[in-house]
């Protein structure tokens, strides 16, 4: 169930994601979600009509209502049924991720909005921006790379995992992408989080060298080599997709 919702967050059409989220939310939280999405859609409509992103009567630091909803999603997204201890049911964090991604769709978030939300965001808010990036039509291709690069500089595994999704697969240059893969191995982020891993690793001799060097360093120190390393190394041996 967890995997299912996470999978939807990373690429499903908003309607499917919303349906999956609503199924899992407690009743009051479902009502909160409906209202928040309606506010976001209204905000997007108003911006389209006036062409102005900020009503003149709004004080400098006050937030649009939908941005407040984006910030508070974590305290309004509780699972309808608490998972059994040890069961893989979706946690509040997955639900909040999904709600925030839906809000970004509803408001048709553009480059300026995603950058502002990421820059001013908590780790959970930044994660949602990263997850939504590949699917936001208002963000010009590649323009949000600085956000992905910022997340890849952190040691917060939640951010690193969200940063190596489809947006990184599509836009990171090969040097930065190799370092992102290596960082996953360093910090314990499962490489299953790396989008298009097989496609981009195929035939990458430089990545293979980096992996072998890392394995040698671990071995020299008497430390175990991460299991995922061999998996990626095997992928580098495949011929490139173009060839």
């Amino acid at each position, binding site marked *: 169930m967890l995997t299912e919702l996470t999978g939807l967050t990373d690429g499903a059409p908003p309607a499917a994601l919303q349906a999956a989220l609503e199924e899992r939310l407690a009743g009051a939280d479902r009502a909160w979600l409906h209202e928040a999405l309606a506010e976001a859609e209204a905000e997007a409509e108003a911006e389209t009509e006036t062409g102005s992103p900020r009503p003149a009567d709004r004080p*400098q*630091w*006050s*937030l649009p209502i939908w941005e*407040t909803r984006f*910030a*508070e*999603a*974590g*305290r309004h997204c509780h699972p309808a049924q608490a998972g059994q201890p040890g069961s893989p049911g979706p*946690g*509040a*964090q997955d639900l*909040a991720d999904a709600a925030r991604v839906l809000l970004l769709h509803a408001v048709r978030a553009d480059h300026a909005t995603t950058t502002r939300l990421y820059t*001013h965001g*908590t*780790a*959970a808010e*930044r994660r949602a921006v990263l997850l939504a990036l590949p699917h936001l039509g208002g963000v010009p291709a590649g323009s949000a790379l600085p956000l992905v690069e910022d997340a890849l500089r*952190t*040691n*917060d*595994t*939640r951010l690193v995992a969200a940063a190596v999704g489809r947006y990184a697969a599509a836009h990171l240059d090969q040097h930065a992408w190799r370092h992102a893969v290596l*960082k996953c191995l*360093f*910090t*314990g*982020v*499962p490489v299953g989080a790396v989008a298009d891993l097989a496609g981009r690793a195929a035939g990458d001799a430089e990545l293979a060298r980096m992996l072998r060097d890392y394995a040698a*360093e671990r071995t020299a120190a008497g*430390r175990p080599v*991460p299991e995922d390393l061999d998996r990626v190394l095997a992928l580098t041996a495949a011929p490139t997709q173009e060839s």
Partner: protein
Amino acid sequence: MRIFDPHIHMTSRTTDDYEAMYAAGVRAVVEPSFWLGQPRTSPASFFDYFDALLGWEPFRASQYGIAHHCTIALNPKEANDPRCVPVLDALARYLVKDGVVAVGEIGYDSMTPAEDTALAAQLQLAAGHGLPALVHTPHRDKLAGLHRTVDVIRESDLPPDRVLLDHLNETTVKAAADSGCWLGFSVYPDTKMDEERMVAVIKEYGTEKVLVNSAADWGKSDPLKTRKVGDALLAAGFTEDDVDQVLWRNPVAFYGLSGRLQLDVPDAPGPLHEGNSILRGGE
């Protein structure tokens, strides 16, 4: 013994501390925004600090099985620096965040007009955001500072039962208790309160609305003081239920007034790597 340290500056502490705190029973902490020891020179420096309290520090805590929340404010000391005061205008966008469970630390340091203004403004921000407030009482001229603090709270829109008065001691506890606020005590190795005096205060005033914290930071302090107070209370004949009220239920009730406490730790144990994902690489 389950422990909630309602006031600790984990940014200044090591992962060894997190490990020792967990072993001692600490499962939740609140980290109030405060002075860093080195004066800040611009609002941007506050923003990076607030971002850390809402990003990196909760992640670090989660790796050790500890739920981390924070309080956000312009602290009393830096309220006197005109280069820092503009941060007040930006607090609203932080006070809506999920991990923020109070406005704080606010209050008095030297009891200046600038501190009056910042305290009153931030009590109003708390009232406007549905948040309680953590109020630091001054170290110098303490009793006069306590009285002045309570006066400003009475003039604000924030009811006293949504205010935690902190760093109390024998000279200020009565006036604080009479005010209707929650009562916070910081237990330190040499200054503030110690374990035995804390036991004596609880014997006299009871366990209701009393919170005990380590206020551990970058100075001489001890993140395990909460546990030591719990042990001292048990040794003095208090029940386990009394200790649970002071060290867990009272902080949960006070910060729970925000409606934002999440005491499960979603990331623990997370993608641990050799028992620790706080990796710099190459570990």
